[in-house]
């Protein structure tokens, strides 16, 4: 179980964080016209590092499942510093958000592909092909 976990966890944690970031960026885009809304973002590199280094809850029985990564939902979101601040106090810059959103979606797909490849490898090994 542990070996399987550590084999799939890097991609799983990445996917979960990418999903989280997609929600944050989606919220920014949704609030592009709201006065005084402050755009947020996730520092993916540090959040990912934290997600992987997280200490699991104690498992006293061999059948206990390892804790799900809670870091993804608790990850600290940071405020974005606007390139050119607007008069209504809104710090969403659509072009910035769109680029970040597209980048995030691509990385999500990449992580998904890596996870799929790992599963494929595992399946090949099991079948002994």
């Amino acid at each position: 179980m542990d070996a399987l976990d550590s084999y799939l966890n890097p991609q799983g944690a990445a996917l979960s964080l990418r999903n989280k970031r997609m929600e944050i960026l989606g919220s920014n885009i949704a609030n592009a016209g709201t006065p005084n809304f402050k755009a947020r973002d996730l520092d993916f590199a540090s959040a990912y590092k934290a997600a992987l280094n997280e200490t699991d809850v104690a498992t006293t029985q061999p059948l206990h499942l390892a804790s799900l990564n809670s870091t993804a939902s608790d990850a600290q979101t940071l405020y974005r510093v606007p390139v050119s601040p607007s008069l209504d106090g809104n710090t969403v810059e659509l072009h910035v958000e769109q680029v970040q959103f597209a980048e995030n979606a691509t990385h999500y797909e990449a992580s998904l592909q890596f996870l799929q490849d790992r599963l494929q490898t595992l399946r090949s090994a099991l079948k002994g092909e």
Partner: protein
Amino acid sequence: MSGLSIFDVAGRAMAAQQVRLNTVASNLANAQTVSGSADTAYHALRPVFETNYPGNQEGSGLATVDAVEVKQSTAEPEKRYSPTNPLADKDGYVYGTNVDTNEELVDMLEASRQYQNNIEVLSTAKSLMLKTLSIGK
């Protein structure tokens, strides 16, 4: 998973932009109406957008938007001297609207662009979710 998903966020933002488009349409439709007094003259409608955090928790990163109310613009309506108009007051004035059509058109473009952006978010999220569902196949 909180009560609100990215689909809710984008969906509600689209509803808010829809309200904004509605007010623009109403304002443009009424741009040429006249009235007998400044009070009864048509005042441009403006939606008020407000960020909505699920469960009032800003930390979750999720934030959608609601058009909480529609207010009337407080700008002075246009006053025109037109004594032959049947609606004219005793001094011969009629009152137009305070709708600025240029402003409305700019507002309309912005609303439609932001609506499109939300559709883009929705369809990207949807296709990623579908791909995730078919993982391992």
